[in-house]
């Protein structure tokens, strides 16, 4: 997609009109939550957050895959990274994510662990071929956006007879997390900006329950300012009319049916399982695990890894922040004990984390 095309979605004049229109239609607060870390960053980076009417209450939800990775999952990959048989492969986001005792992958590398930052899961195939005496373990963190590519990597590895690649699967799926949030009485959200990337894979129908079951609105949205403003305006209009809808505004990328081929590959290799979400807890059926037919790739089986719930870090309010109950700067640790240089939780260190976005971009 050309940048000239995208520029149209950043037109300052149109954005101003949308903002004025929204303000004129707002009679009371609208609490909206975006469910994607890329939206969080886009809202801050574009300066949109500083321009939104005061009645628009912006909440960052559990949409950063790094942030929702449970403490016990972080500790599991940090433990495995120092195994002498292992070359750990990961996307860059996880390098600074803190585990217990202040550990992280960067420090592990300094202590001699072999960790390779990859740009695509397919890079692990070459890494495995080049290191036949080692086990290459890819940390599978992410939502429906990344899971199909990892599934395709496993299929290709099998075709190529690669036997030393394993996946440490911590994948999670978005719709059930939203269901869990909406069923929690403590959480007060009027509408959702739904993720563009995840929706490109699963389409819009998995979110229909938001309007049908809970009477809330949700809009699949792109990442440009006008995308976001259009969706907010729609949600204001619907609320004024007493309506709730789930619609797709990101039609230039997302089809209502998503990408059935990618979903098919994902479920050929993975199957739903219960998953622990950091700050939220167990959400039944919201995770993915490797099917028994593909267990030769399962790092958890290979290394006997079990994931168990553990108490959250003392004082850290990430759970309340991920659920939209608190804003990042309402956490007592924010900017004091918890900074990007010394993060207590991943929300402060992930490039898409809400605490990191507040710390990095918020002016006052």
């Amino acid at each position, binding site marked *: 997609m050309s*940048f000239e095309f995208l520029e149209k979605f*950043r037109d*300052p004049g149109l*954005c*101003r009109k949308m903002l004025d229109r929204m303000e004129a239609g707002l009679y009371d607060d609208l609490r909206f939550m975006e469910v994607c870390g*890329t939206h969080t960053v886009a809202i*801050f*980076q*574009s*300066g*949109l*957050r*500083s*321009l939104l009417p005061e009645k628009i209450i912006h909440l960052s939800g559990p949409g950063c*895959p*790094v942030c929702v990775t449970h403490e016990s999952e972080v500790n599991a990959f940090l433990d495995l990274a120092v195994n002498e048989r292992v070359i750990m492969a990961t*996307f*860059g*986001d996880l*390098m*600074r994510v803190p585990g217990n005792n202040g550990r992280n992958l*960067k420090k592990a590398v300094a202590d001699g662990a072999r960790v390779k*930052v990859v*740009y695509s899961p397919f890079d692990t195939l070459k890494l495995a071929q080049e290191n036949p005496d080692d086990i290459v373990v890819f940390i599978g*963190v*992410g*939502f429906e*956006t*990344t899971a199909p590519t990892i599934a395709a990597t496993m299929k290709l590895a099998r075709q190529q007879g690669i036997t030393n690649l394993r996946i440490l699967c911590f994948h999670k799926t978005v719709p059930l997390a939203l269901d869990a949030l909406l069923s929690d009485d403590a959480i007060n959200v009027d509408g959702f900006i739904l993720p563009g*990337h995840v929706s490109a894979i699963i389409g819009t129908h998995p979110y229909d329950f938001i309007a049908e079951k809970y009477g809330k609105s949700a809009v699949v949205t792109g990442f440009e*300012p006008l995308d976001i403003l259009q969706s907010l305006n729609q949600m204001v209009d619907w609320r004024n009319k007493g309506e709730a809808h789930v619609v797709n505004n990101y039609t230039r990328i997302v089809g209502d049916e998503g990408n059935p081929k990618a979903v098919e590959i994902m479920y050929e290799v993975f199957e739903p399982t219960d998953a622990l979400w950091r700050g939220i807890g167990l959400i039944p059926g919201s995770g993915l695990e490797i099917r028994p037919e593909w267990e030769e790739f399962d790092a958890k089986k290979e290394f006997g890894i079990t994931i168990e719930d553990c108490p959250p870090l003392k004082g850290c309010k990430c759970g309340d922040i991920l659920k939209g109950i608190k804003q990042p700067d309402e956490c007592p640790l924010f900017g004091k004990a918890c900074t*990007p*240089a010394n993060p207590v939780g991943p929300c402060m260190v992930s*490039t*898409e984390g809400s605490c990191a976005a507040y*710390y*990095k*971009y*918020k*002016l006052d």
Partner: protein
Amino acid sequence: MSDKVLLDYGSGGRASQRLISQLFLGHLGNDELNRLNDAAELSMSGKLAMSTDSFTVDPIFFPGGNIGSLAVHGTVNDVAMMGAIPKYLTCGYIIEEGLPMDDLEKIVQAMGEAARHAGVAVVTGDTKVVPKGAVDKIFINTTGIGDIIADPVPSGDAARPGDAVLISGTIGDHGLTILGTREGLEFEANVQSDSAALNHLLVKLVQELPEVHVMRDPTRGGLATTLNEITTSSNVCCELQENDIPVRPEVKGGCSILGLDPLYLANEGKFICILPEEYAEKALEIMRADPLGQDACRIGTMTDANPGKVVMVTQLGGKRLLGMLEGEQLPRIC
């Protein structure tokens, strides 16, 4: 000489002498260096600027240059940012055993060309060869020294509210080139390093303008981090206009794919110039008359609103902080 660098070449014996006489003097030689004394004899007076830098770039060859030209440009620019005319360089090489001799020659040749173009003489140097694995191919240290001609001397703590903030051209080109080449990524269009010696242009600026408060090259950490250093040192606020910051579309595209921010990517042929408002237009005129400053533009203004901070006024007219880079930029998941 053999086709690879052997430990023998760092022995100090005949092999070392052959390497020095046939390779280093061939490309870097001048009256002072050719004497091969233990130290260089120099005549300098007045205020001097001196800087040192070590170059460990991976890959050592990249579109737009190599570690040799970069080692000259980097130090020449650091000296020149003080409003000085760089005159002399030293070069220290730490070479990994087994480096192809052809590669070393290309690097030294590029250093020679870069030094001649910048008008500096390499007057003393050192070579060490270390066992395979002890360094990654080749590390180069350069130290530069030059005569300061600017009065007042530009300094990071001299920015004042009301000053104009200028940049000499597009940002992020070098950083993206290095990352892309390292990872074997191909971008839509060719992106290449902007590595260049800026001293001739910088000298023109300080000669023709009565006052330049700050000159800085936004190398590692990029434009955003360098401006943060300046605002902290000067205790002023830098208000940047997002629309005015020049970034090539291909760099924007590459950054978008990798999840990187061009504002934090290294540059090796650009400089920030902060000076009183009344000299801004003249400065831009001087910069644009030089091929290395043809895309120069104003990107912001120093204010007293938020001391020590860099504030971005976005395309939409919103405001946000532009913080300092914490560690290195890492590609994201999605």
